[in-house]
């Protein structure tokens, strides 16, 4: 066969690839890990500040408005954002197996399942409901108090519903893509 020796040629070609000669000393890696930890702490602080600001704002609205619906909306928003803060602090993604002892195919499948699960189920619907429902209830209450801004608030409600529908569609289609890849992976293992 004319191409019999070819794979060796390709292997040689492959190993001739020019390298970037990047090197990392253990000290550099340790510093890099500390930098990552600082970055992750900073992210948590930003999320906490934003979350607590929203909680404070809706707590103020609760006492500011005399309308029942606006108060229910404010109270639900406070509860919703508090739940989100607790969820983000405590709920971890499904843990990945250790990278060293785990065979690649098992690791890959777990990683796909993890990403799929992050885009569907309770995680998706709880986020959407927690943000959307109290906001709409609050807007309805606000409309009763200030009917002159009703058109703007209806637009706001429509925007929230549309955004939630878009996010749900995007996440669910992403989850489906992950499921397709998992199915393909299973089929390819069975097929060979």
């Amino acid at each position: 066969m004319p191409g019999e020796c070819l794979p060796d040629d390709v292997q040689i070609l492959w190993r001739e690839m020019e390298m970037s000669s990047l090197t990392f000393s253990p000290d550099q890696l340790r510093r890099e890990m500390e930098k990552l930890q600082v970055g992750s702490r900073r992210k948590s602080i930003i999320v906490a500040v934003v979350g607590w600001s929203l909680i404070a704002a809706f707590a103020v609205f609760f006492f500011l408005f005399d309308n029942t619906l606006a108060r229910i909306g404010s109270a639900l928003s406070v509860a919703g954002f508090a739940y989100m803060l607790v969820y983000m602090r405590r709920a971890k993604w499904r843990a990945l197996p250790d990278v060293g002892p785990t065979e690649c195919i098992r690791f890959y499948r777990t990683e796909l399942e993890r990403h799929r699960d992050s885009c569907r189920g309770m995680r998706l619907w709880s986020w959407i409901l927690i943000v959307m429902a109290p906001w709409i209830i609050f807007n309805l209450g606000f409309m009763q108090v200030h009917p002159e801004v009703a058109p703007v608030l209806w637009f706001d409600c429509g925007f929230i519903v549309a955004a939630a529908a878009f996010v749900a569609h995007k996440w669910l289609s992403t989850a489906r893509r992950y499921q397709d890849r998992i199915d393909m992976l299973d089929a390819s293992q069975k097929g060979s």
Partner: protein
Amino acid sequence: MRKEPPPVVTTSNVGNVEPRQHPKTGQNEWYQQAVGDYDTALDRLAHAYEADPDRRRDLLQEIHLALWRSFEKFDGRCSLRTWVYRVAHNVAASHVIRQTKWKKNAAFLTLEEAEAQPGNENVEVSADRHQALARLLALIQRLELVDRQVILAYLEDLDAESIGEITGLSTANVWTRIHRIKNVLVRQFHTGVRDAR
């Protein structure tokens, strides 16, 4: 009575030594040894997973970081080579999944699709070894991850048993995939690589 000396653990026999007999080797020492032996292979692996130079640098750093951290748990149940490749491929797989999470058209080629692609007829273009290498990389970067892992291990001259140990595929499955990958390579690169010499 004369005491037997403890077994000497080297890179080549570490997988054969019982974990309890394993002398205490530090995380840094294992890392240095792994880098000494597989530095260029890791670099090539990063090329195969990431085309963008900046993101490739990040990926390579991520691999090194994961490798260094993983040696806290390295117990010698598998060879150093198997461990290094597993860590590198697993980190790279996470990287690819993260990078393509929201990309709707980020589908990878299955081996069937790669086989169905037309062979390369453009001898003039592929006569350049750089061009041939670029095309090889482009093909690998489009392959589904498991096939990518097999082809990379094959290009690094690992045997089917070692590839099976790294990926978790059966040896027969690895053989089948290697055979099919060879066919794809023959169709895509024979003319180019031969003429480039």
